[in-house]
């Protein structure tokens, strides 16, 4: 029976985050009229890391940073046995005319991002939205959604499950590929 496999960890993991930050700096330079929005809950762990790494690289950087919860926008509500409890949304700015970098940890079916885009639209009309993911499971998409910045691409069958573990919560930075979804 296939065992869980660690795809990325420790130094490589940190390098990947730093590389994503440099790609953002290359594209956005001083981040004028740009904001970062992480998707609750796991996406926020990545966006927290991205924002702190960006600030480490550019100490003068000031960028509006929000956290958005998409529970009420999910298209599988009422298809589940019980509703999900929402996390907090922390958005103290609106995105009218702004460039938005939307961040989530794993891009799988694309449905979370679709819900995120609808939720985002309720804070104004952004001039542009780009998507950053740590993991892109490119062969498992239900919707035509693609990331602009990707940490690592993982090609796996539908039954597989990818989990990103974080030092802050799990004690280690790791990306793990499980052969089957945990029940």
């Amino acid at each position, binding site marked *: 029976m296939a065992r869980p496999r660690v795809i990325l960890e420790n130094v490589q993991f940190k390098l990947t985050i730093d590389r994503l930050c440099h790609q953002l700096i290359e594209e956005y330079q001083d981040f004028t009229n740009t904001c970062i929005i992480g998707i609750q809950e796991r996406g926020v762990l990545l966006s927290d890391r991205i924002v702190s790494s960006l600030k480490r690289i550019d100490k003068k950087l000031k960028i509006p940073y929000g956290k958005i919860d998409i529970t009420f926008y999910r298209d599988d509500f009422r298809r589940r046995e019980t509703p*999900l*409890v929402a996390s907090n949304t922390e958005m103290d700015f609106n995105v009218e005319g702004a460039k938005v970098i939307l961040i989530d940890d794993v891009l799988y079916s694309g449905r979370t991002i679709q819900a995120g885009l609808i939720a985002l639209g309720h804070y104004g009309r952004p001039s542009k939205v780009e998507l950053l993911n740590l993991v892109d499971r490119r062969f498992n998409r239900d919707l035509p959604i693609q990331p602009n910045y990707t940490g690592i691409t993982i090609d796996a069958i539908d039954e597989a499950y990818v989990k990103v573990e974080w030092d802050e919560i799990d004690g280690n930075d790791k990306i793990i590929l499980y052969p089957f979804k945990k029940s």
Partner: protein
Amino acid sequence: MAIVSSLSTKHLLGIKYIQKDDIETIFRTADNFKEVLSRPVKKVPSLRDVTIANLFFENSTRTKMSFELAEKRLSADVINFSASSSSVKKGETLLDTVNNILSMKVDMIVMRHPAPGTPFYLSQNIDASIINAGDGTHEHPTQALLDAYSIREKHGEVKDKKIVIVGDIKHSRVALSNIFCLKKLGAQVAVCGPATLIPKHIESLGVQVFYNLKKALEWCDIANVLRIQLERQDIKFIPSLREYAMYYGVNRDILESLSKKITIMHPGPINRGVEISSDVADSEQSIILDQVENGVAIRMAVLYLLAGQVS
């Protein structure tokens, strides 16, 4: 991962029939909806495939508007029914009326009815989820939830707070639901009013009784002032409104005579100059308008959590 949660019941018939955990789940969800209501676009698509019928067999302004707004903010389809303009006047039974409405594929029913127990009767005879928006002198669960939620917002928590409900306790569904809700959340509850308007054996619900307003206000942290329900008084329970206002009206003078500042609540509609004076209703001690605002978030939370169970 997100925490999964739901209520222990399919209907919200009364606070008596739900658990403390249910109340806390509703409050947590309402916190999220309060944030939604502060956004430029105050609407989420959660209930876009749910149809809700608001059946009001008794007059209502604020509760009906609050429910309707909550339903629309959740993107539900809404139909409204009021008894005054319906076939009820032509002799149709309640069950026939409701079954006719349900054949139009309605998923949830919000109902106000002058007869206590009507939502129970319906819940036993139909499939849709039912939310009681007030049944006679029995219960008004969403009002109690929004009252307790407003106390939690103002004072941090409800537990151990002293709350006195002043006024017409006998005819008040708000009083009964409030007592159940506040007791479940660990508050100390008292009622205050003229002896004719305090039900016998109310102490058996674990509440204190005051007949003197000053003593009650001196005891409490929060006073929830109720309206005299003139429409439910077939016989005279009080000699006159003027006399009631003299003995039980909450006014500036009595508040200033207290040793501490208490919070004033009122479920509305207010009879200014009877149970509460204008300067108190509009003062900074009053959270009456916060209650109305929180009403929408609480009703969104209840609808959202119950809709999750609609098949």
